[in-house]
């Protein structure tokens, strides 16, 4: 089993598209499209800055893969079962809670599972996306959309910068 940087980028772009489609149900298209554009810009930044450098495909053991899949499944089942209990806490449509929490908790799982900086970077972006799915029905302001858009691009830029500086130093060492 291999980890491919490009396929991860593509999945991230698809996730941004799906978040946009979710948010579109509660926000006007002009505001919701900020999320899509900023998200895809973040994907683009990662692609441009890191695709040349990240050329290794980390190989994973079969047991590690199955452990991760089982953990993700367990979390998903847990969220699916207990999400309705949260309706009294956050009065939004159940779909938003289930999807938002799925993305949020799976990215927390990813933060725990993965140690490489690039995978942590992906986890940060997805964590933020999960939260946005839950929070968008609660509040839709231009300032919030602008700051969160800057967050996505900022994380992609700064994260790539840190990864590049660390890696270029590793390469320069004999």
């Amino acid at each position, binding site marked *: 089993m291999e980890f491919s940087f490009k396929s991860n980028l593509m999945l991230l772009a698809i996730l941004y598209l799906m978040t946009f489609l979710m948010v579109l149900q509660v926000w006007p298209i002009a505001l919701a499209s900020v999320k899509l554009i900023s998200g895809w810009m973040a994907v683009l930044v990662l692609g441009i800055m890191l695709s040349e450098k990240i050329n290794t495909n980390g190989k994973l053991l079969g047991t590690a893969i199955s452990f991760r899949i089982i953990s993700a499944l367990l979390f998903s089942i847990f969220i699916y079962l207990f999400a309705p209990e949260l309706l009294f806490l956050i009065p939004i449509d159940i779909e938003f809670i289930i999807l938002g929490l799925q993305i949020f908790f799976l990215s*927390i799982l990813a933060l725990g599972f993965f140690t490489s900086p690039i995978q942590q970077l992906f986890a940060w972006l997805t964590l933020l996306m999960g*939260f946005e799915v839950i929070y968008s029905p609660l509040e839709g302001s231009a300032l919030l959309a602008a700051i969160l858009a800057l967050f996505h691009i*900022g994380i992609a830029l700064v994260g790539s910068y*840190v990864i590049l500086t*660390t890696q270029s130093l590793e390469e320069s060492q004999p």
Partner: protein
Amino acid sequence: MSAPFVWVILPIFFSFILYILRKNQPVVGILSIGLSFLLFASSLTIPIQENVGENSRFGLNPSLTILGREFLLISADKYLIALFYLLVTLWNTASFLLEIDPLFFIFSIASSALAVAAYSVTPFIYASLLIGFISILAMPVLSSYSSKQGNVSGLFRFFSYQLLSIPFLLLAGWFLAGGEIAPVAEQELIQASVLLGLGFAFMLAFFPFHIWTPILADASIPIHFSFITRLIFQIGFFLLLKFINNFSWLREFQVIYPALRVIGLVMVVISGMWSFFAMNLRKIIAYYVLLNNGLLILAISTIPEKGPLLFSIILLTGNLSLIGISWAAQNISKYGRGFSLDQIIGLYKKFPFTVIIFIIGLFSLWGSPLTAGFWPLQFLISSLNTYSASFVVFTLLGLLFAAMTSMRVLFRVFSPERPNEMGSKESLPVKIFSIFLSLIIILMGIFPKFATIYAMELIQPFGMLLK
């Protein structure tokens, strides 16, 4: 012109200009010191005209609207703005003497402006987003050393924890949004308190979410680490005070203060204890930052009595001491000595002035007599005694461990070993800065009244807590 424009937009604009000039370290350093001092002086001198009919020829408009949200700075906030820019001036001066990376100067100005923005944004639930933005900007600065070491795990943990704080604080803010004007149901209050607690625990490195602090400190330049963590913690604490001040239901909620007291106590005991086992100066600094956080939480927990004043004076004295110890540690390492406790043996011969500020700073942080930290900690302990004697015992235990750590450092640096290393390596500006900081810390200990006057002004924006 508006106050947020002067103390938020202009500094951010100037930091862009400084970024263009970043190749020239001395120019960027001098400009940033001058700019931060100007912002500090202007915050104390330029009036903010809150009423349109006021009889002032010149004064700033208190509010600025950006994307439909208001940034509001009233005249009671001017001491708080002054605090942010005074500290930046001191940190920048300290960094300039050590010829630190110019990126730090640029970041310090921009992040302080963002901190003022976080403080002034209305509704203030957006503050957590702006604080998160400070952590994004902090990453390149912190990575300047950690990426050279190939050790970015602390940096990534730091950001993960800061990022996790945002959802909880935003959701808590949304919960409490109606609470400013209307009563909140008991059930909602408990839920909002849990969310708030989690958000602040992630942001302010409450136990057990503090593990990133020593890891990050161990892979960072002490000045970078202390400035960034201090700035984020400081604005985080102001945000916490603002939450308690603005929401009467939260302010009168019985569980809040005892919970904070227990958290603060655990922080003081654990950070004091772990500092005793730390084997290098960077980790000791990290645990002292956490110790000061614990003391600040304890101060907030005494809010119905003397809490706000205690909080602001511990914050002031803690800031000065942390500048002193971080600067001194960096100065020692700059001249070839490492941060390990074995490498600081007999250091006073080579760096007498640096060693003095380092020791005074450490002693002040645990409240040694004749230092700035003495009076506020005595005051805190006597306030805690009104709740329970066990709080006093455990606080003293944590402080005792921290005192033992300082003693250990003291004996090492004044050890008579290494007689060959005679002759000071310190330049005249370094000596002057050391004496200046040491004198301030000692004078604040001997004459606490002057610091108290400023501390009283600092807490004026939190009027509901002073009643």
